[in-house]
């Protein structure tokens, strides 16, 4: 579904990504693991069009998308849950979700997806009229995911959904993400520092270090890998 090959990304003179290649097959969850600064978020930002690559190609369902601006990439079916959630804090939960469907014009479909979002995240339904700033961290993360789902994506990019959340909440969110993947067949590219959790729900994973892929394989393989265990899983 998504093919990234030899991707380079630079901010001014600083190279954040140098030659990453990866593949996300349809219906799977693929995890990008690695420490802070490994180039994970930059890769996601480049796929979603927020950042232009300096070199390399990105193909989505057979089409080159590496030179298409972010607002059009959403229309093509890629939706990103950005790092730090980036919800519209001054708007209500409902307004946030309506904005998620900004590119769509199918009223009935939007209504259906709204109900679906509320099924996955009942708390959002309860608080639909509330200003998003008043939500807890976990609820804000759910809102960010819900907002991304409202665009009816075929590929969801999830950037550090566990950031700053209590472990219990993180489990809950990961459970829902997995459920969405299984029930809807939604393809997910997940960036996570918490490798343990990510490998639990992912089918495949890539480990990044200083902007390059140092390891790749199925989730089980990586869980069994000595180096990964020592560096990222902590046992």
């Amino acid at each position, binding site marked *: 579904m998504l093919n990234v090959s030899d991707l380079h990304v630079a*901010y*001014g*003179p*600083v*190279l*954040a*990504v*140098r030659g990453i290649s990866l593949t996300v097959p349809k219906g799977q969850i693929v995890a990008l693991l690695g420490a*802070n*600064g*490994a*180039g*994970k*978020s*930059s890769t996601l*930002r480049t796929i979603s069009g927020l*950042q232009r690559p300096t070199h390399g190609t990105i193909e989505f369902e057979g089409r080159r998308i590496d030179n298409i601006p972010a607002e059009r990439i959403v229309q093509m079916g890629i939706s990103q849950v*950005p*790092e*730090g959630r*980036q919800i519209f804090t001054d708007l209500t939960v409902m307004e946030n979700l309506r904005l998620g469907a900004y590119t769509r014009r199918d009223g009935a479909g939007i209504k259906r997806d709204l109900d679906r979002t509320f099924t996955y995240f009942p708390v959002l339904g309860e608080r639909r009229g509330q200003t998003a700033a008043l939500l807890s961290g976990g609820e804000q993360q759910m809102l960010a995911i819900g907002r991304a789902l409202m665009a009816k994506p075929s590929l969801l990019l999830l950037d550090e959904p566990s950031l700053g959340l209590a472990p219990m909440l993180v489990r809950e969110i990961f459970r829902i993400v997995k459920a969405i993947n299984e029930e809807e067949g939604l393809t997910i590219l997940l960036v996570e520092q918490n490798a343990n959790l990510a490998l639990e729900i992912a089918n495949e994973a890539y480990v990044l270090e*200083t*902007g390059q892929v140092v390891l790749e394989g199925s989730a089980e393989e990586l869980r069994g890998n000595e180096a990964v265990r020592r560096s990222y899983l902590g046992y």
Partner: protein
Amino acid sequence: MAAALLRPRTLGFALLAVVLVIFPYLHGWPVFSAFISEFRTFNATMLAVWLLVVLSMNLLTGYSGQISLGHAAVVLVGAYTAGVLVDQLGVPLPLAILLAGVFTGIAGGVIIGLPAVRLAGPYLAIATFSLVITLPQILKMGGIRNWTNPSRGISIDAVQPPGLVDGFLDERQWLYYITMATAVFMTILAWNLVRSRIGRAFVALRDSEIAAEQMGINVPLYKALAFGISSFYAGIAGGLYFMVLAFVHPESLGFLDSILFLVAIVVGGLATILGSIFGAFFLTFQGELIDELATIIPEAEKLRGVIYGSLLIVVMILFPRGMAGFVQDLVRTLGRITAARRHGGLSSNPPAQDDTNGESDAQGR
């Protein structure tokens, strides 16, 4: 040791010191007299005053992120405090200036800083703007008008050089030296301040109040402190302003000046000492610059506003970090070229950087 003395930076500062010391005499020297008039000594004196004003503004807005449209009022408080102390109470001028700084600093920290703690952005700007509107009226009010003399203002005799140096220096040169010395001293002080724990707390506050709080910074305290320190600088600047012009009036500094101070820190370069120096040059010479342009370009006199505005916009677009940013980029580029030449090629790949870089607008605006 000798090598350290020869470093370009050290040499630069030494050269700057020499220029500052000999400047009031340059207009009398053969070559220089062609393009430096005696009046430039007065320009340079005002430049020192404006430097303190711009530093004051930069400490508050550039470093701490508190936008003030009322800074002219704060400087005016300093000038008036010095004026009243000298005129009414017979306090010696240097002491009066110091007291003006202290008084303005405390007043700024308490009267503006504490209430301003809850305000931000345009709300703070308009609240401080209220100061500029109301202060002249307050100075004219019943209780204090006997001190402030709003109809004619307060004037003093021009400062005379003390007996010791009399004969070597005329009044203009004497004013220049004491004003410039104060400005240089306080610039060095500011340079140290912004690199201290307090300065770093200011910057943290500016970048994100929430993050600053999480880092254990007492946000209200440091906000008030930013106003206090900034007002101290403004108060000293006001005192010097009074000394240099030997005059102060409720309308001496107003709304227009407040706006110009804001323009000066942005055009000079936010949150840098170098930028403050450029800002001071801007304040001193902006009027003259436009006058000069008007004599070169035909019809320009009628298009003054258009030229001025266009220049502002062009500078903002071409040099988003002000003149200081431009100079820093220039130095860096030159450095890279020399380094490349020395190593016989471009430097190798820089290291990968933190993921979050480049997310300049991540927080919205």
